[in-house]
């Protein structure tokens, strides 16, 4: 009995580790299956009619509707960064360099990250809740009973739409974040708009911009794959849907930030 109590933390740790690897395996399988289904979903003769319409609908839902929020948040972040740095840079006589810092910070890091966080709420939570409700109301089972693969029919359009739209939203976020910084730089430091944009484009290389977009794409893939996996795994009715939605938001934010750290470390190591 005492042995059992002593071993309990070890057993718990082993169970958690096994659970983590099982979840990662299922997630990888889902992403692989979705990737294999992309061709079938979009270019197969019989699936095409529904595939495109479904994809556009998802892109509208996931991306277009989230643009105002992303614009608002990135504008504020750009303005906050400028306000925080203005006094220090002014002291060093480098007030005009605020544009360099903001363009790099937003283009490489904050643009993709903020887009991902906003889309976690917009896309991730709603995908998990929608698929979870479909599980509860037997819709997924009905799809399978009609020989329609839920991965191809439901997961593929959502993963594609979220991945593409996270990149698109990130481009808009980068631009609006820069404008936020510019407004503050103009008001607090007297930097002109032309000066600000010159500095921004001098500092931000195409490589930095692409690095940010690549991150955004991976974040989009993560958000949608996690949401689909957790949504399709719902058990236990309405309560299960609530649990899956909460888990999706929490797990996605942790996963996005962890992957971001990994990306940054790799880019740092290879000198990007």
């Amino acid at each position, binding site marked *: 009995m005492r042995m059992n109590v002593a071993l309990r933390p070890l057993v718990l740790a082993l169970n958690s580790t096994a659970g983590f690897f099982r979840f990662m395996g299922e997630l990888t399988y889902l992403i692989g299956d979705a990737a294999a289904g992309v061709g079938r979903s979009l270019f197969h003769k019989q699936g095409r*009619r529904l595939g495109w319409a479904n994809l556009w609908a998802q892109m509208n839902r996931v991306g277009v509707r989230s643009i105002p929020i992303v614009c608002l948040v990135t504008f504020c972040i750009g303005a906050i960064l400028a306000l925080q740095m203005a006094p220090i840079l002014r002291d060093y006589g480098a007030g005009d360099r605020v544009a360099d810092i903001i363009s790099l910070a937003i283009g490489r890091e904050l643009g993709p990250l903020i887009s991902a966080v906003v889309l976690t709420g917009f896309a991730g939570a709603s995908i998990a809740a929608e698929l979870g409700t479909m599980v509860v109301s*037997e819709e997924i089972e009905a799809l399978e009973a*009609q020989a329609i693969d839920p991965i191809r029919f439901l997961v593929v359009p959502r993963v594609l739409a979220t991945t593409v739209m996270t990149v698109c939203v990130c481009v808009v976020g980068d631009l609006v974040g820069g404008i936020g910084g510019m407004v503050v730089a103009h008001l607090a430091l007297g930097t002109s708009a032309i000066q600000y944009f010159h500095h921004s484009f001098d500092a931000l290389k195409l490589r930095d911009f692409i690095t940010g977009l690549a991150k955004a794409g991976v974040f989009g893939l993560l958000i949608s794959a996690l949401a689909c996996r957790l949504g399709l795994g719902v058990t236990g009715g309405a309560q299960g849907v609530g649990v899956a939605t909460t888990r999706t938001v929490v797990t996605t934010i942790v996963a996005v930030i962890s992957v971001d750290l990994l990306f940054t470390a790799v880019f740092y190591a290879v000198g990007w």
Partner: protein
Amino acid sequence: MRWVGEAMSEPVIQVMDASKTFDGRGVLDAIRLDVMRGETLVILGGSGSGKSTLLRLMIGNVQCDGGDILAFGKSLRTMTPAELDGYRKSVGVLFQSGALFNSMTVADNVALPLREHTGLAEHTIDIMVKIKLELVGLRQHADKMPAMLSGGMKKRAGLARAIALDPKVLFYDEPSAGLDPVTSAEIDQLIMDLNKKLGVTSVVVTHEMGSAFRIADRMVLLDRGKFIAEGTPERMRSHPDPLVHQFVLGLAEGPLTDRRRAGGYEEDLLGPLEGI
């Protein structure tokens, strides 16, 4: 041992010693059943008797742990994914809730299997959808969303979708559950009409005895994962087994209630008090 349904014509689905366990709890225990071509077979059973699990085994959504299920002579266990898809296209399923896709109109729900599995032009699909909806009396409601339909209408729409690909076998999971008596009788009439008009084989899982007696050619009663009775509605009505008698007539007293009462209720109720 004679298999249930053995005496009749050619079987389309054969359940051969199928067993299923969930979380260590046996739900189906080596059951045997033949579903004969053209018949309306009603699977009866109380809540938790395993009848819905049996239906899911027969449509290939769940795999049995032991035994096998032959559909049109082919084992569901050894079917390739493509063969299983082919089998699923040849059967229709009406789920308990209707399981309509809430983001699509009724017409799009019915059109979905046609769009997915046939190369038909859109205007041909439109005509077919109207025909199917007319069969279930919902042609005027084609453009409505599922949320705008009543319970009975949802079941009819689900039925229209189930017959979209002209299936050979139709499975119904509790078709009368949650419906008022008139709507329930309408659904029963629809099941009988489809059986006659389309010549399909019907497998109906239910515990509504009125509905079962209206539609059944043959009945089987499932209890705790095993079949305990089989026969025509007349035979079931006069079955000598008191358990069958109680279930079929819906009596408040009998072996089923005795079994529930024998669960040590008093000890269970008073047990925690001893520790206080």
